[in-house]
């Protein structure tokens, strides 16, 4: 369904774009219907940038992103099928308008001819889908709603359209533990309805909870990707290991014992080919003969 092929993104910075930084380098992966792919990496590794490129909000520098075989272009028709939700629910709503305006915008663009009453019905249904009580959230300003409510409003909004792919960029980082799990559960449910989800996070445990497949990103490049079980169960890349070891766990102390293997291949800048370490598990380098 969604396919990234050797996608690179460079940002021009400085006067007249004198210099450029590569935020994303040669990233390729796929998302198929009914699958959650989680994109993991430290801050600044390019996760959001990939999400934005998929959403057509940033153009790619090179490489291609295709959706159902057609290149991403943004625009009205495209967003009928792909929607995104961002990290910060508060800034996703225009503070001067009522929160339910996000539904009106959808109606204006995509369903101008639907009668108001019918539309209200659809909105209500969609809200109930995300387990919100329409009476509690409609007609209120964003600041009158909690982060979790807003986050779910956004999901409801996306569901009003007949979407096939949802890009969820750190949608839970603002939520506290209990709300967070509600939202995750909701995503998981949607997945079972055939929706593809690209779940962007830096919290490994969340990615693990939800995703079939995981892509680990470092400084714009994929260092490891594959089935979540494999990636988390048997992390091959030292970076993945480091990440995993740094995750605070309730029951286990940080184990400092994990030696950080240096990877000369990597240090030399050879970020080249991802090698298949085992079926369904690709690593940029690791304890592989090529490294």
């Amino acid at each position: 369904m969604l396919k990234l092929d050797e996608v690179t993104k460079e940002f021009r910075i400085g006067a007249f774009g004198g210099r450029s930084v590569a935020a994303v380098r040669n990233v390729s992966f796929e998302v198929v219907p009914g699958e959650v792919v989680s994109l993991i990496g430290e801050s600044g590794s390019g996760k959001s940038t990939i999400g934005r490129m998929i959403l057509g909000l940033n153009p790619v520098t090179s490489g291609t992103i295709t959706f159902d075989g057609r290149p991403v272009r943004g625009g009205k028709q495209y967003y009928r099928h792909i929607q995104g939700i961002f990290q910060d629910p508060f800034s996703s709503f225009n503070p001067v308008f009522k929160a339910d305006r996000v539904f009106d915008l959808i109606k204006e663009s995509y369903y101008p001819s639907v009668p108001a009453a019918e539309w209200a019905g659809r909105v209500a249904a969609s809200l109930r889908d995300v387990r919100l009580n329409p009476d509690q959230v409609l007609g209120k300003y964003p600041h009158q709603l909690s982060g979790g409510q807003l986050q779910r409003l956004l999901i409801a909004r996306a569901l009003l359209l007949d979407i096939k792919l949802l890009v969820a960029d750190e949608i839970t980082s603002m939520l506290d533990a209990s709300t967070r799990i509600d939202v995750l559960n909701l995503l998981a449910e949607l997945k079972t309805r055939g929706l593809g989800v690209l779940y962007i996070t830096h919290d490994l445990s969340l990615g693990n909870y939800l995703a079939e497949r995981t892509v680990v990103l470092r400084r714009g490049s994929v260092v490891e990707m594959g089935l979540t079980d494999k990636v988390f169960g048997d992390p091959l890349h030292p970076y993945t290991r480091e990440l995993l070891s740094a995750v605070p766990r309730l029951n286990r102390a940080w184990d400092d014992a994990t030696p950080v293997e240096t990877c000369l291949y990597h240090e030399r800048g050879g970020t080249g080919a991802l090698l298949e370490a085992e079926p369904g598990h690709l690593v940029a380098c690791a304890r592989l003969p090529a490294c």
Partner: protein
Amino acid sequence: MRRYFGRKLLIYGLTFFVAVTVNWLIPRFMPGDPVASMVARANVTQPAAAEAMRVYYSNLFGFDQPLITQYLNFWAALFRGDFGISIWLFPSPVSSVIMTAVPYTLALIIPSVLLSWVVGNRFGAYAARRKLLDNTVLPVGYVLTAMPYMWLAVLLAWALGVIAGLFPVAGGYSFSMRPNWSWPFLLDLLHHWTLPFLSLFLVALGGWAIGMRNMIIYELESDYSNYLAALGAPARLIRRYAFRNAVLPQITGLALQLGVIVAGALVTEIVFAYPGLGSLILNAIKNKDFFLLQGTFLFIVLGVLIANFIIDIVYVVVDPRTRAGMAGAQA
């Protein structure tokens, strides 16, 4: 760093180019004919003599050449420092006319800008978050900054000049004096300079004080101020830091306000018949002396550009953030 200045210089270059072009362009859109008015000024009765004169001046000013040649000649002349010849003060070259006026204008603008900036900032910083002062200093500041320059100038001239007789109301120095480097003469210069300076200074002062007051309130509420306060740092230190940081936008403000200040200076000079560029402009306008008007305009633009550039440099020196930003956004 070089890139930053390169960019600034590009903007200045462009500005100058636009200014010169506008300057050259506008006279060619205006009604009336400068040469005609000159000929009319000279009481020539004989039509033949008038015609001869007209041809003569037209030649002199190049109105008979094709436009593009005139334009290029204009640039060429500019680079030679030749702004043409004044019509009003025929046959003095515009550049020399301007040069005699410039010292007076600079002597007025530079101290009033700098002093009002420094004093205004101090006042504003002092007033911020001190209820009593805030309520007394600020209204005065607002009134000052909202005053039309010339109104204050005329009021001062009348009150301190004509009524109180403390200061002279016109001229750059006493009519009984001859310029020389003696104390009496310098004192006399200062005496004449006081009132125009004061009106410029006061109006600008109000603006800076208010700007600073607002800026510093922002700064006093900022995270680093809170942090310092939480660590028990004395108010003095916090204010000092806030001041330093609040001054930075004020430097930019200075650059933005230069045009306004120059404008104020021009009007003030006119009120006090101070022999600077303002009076020159007024006369150029009254006498339809385009060459002088254009020359003065270009001169002012050039002056403001240079001042802007200096401010840019100062800003870079004072604010580490720009320097770090310019070196490239390495986080």
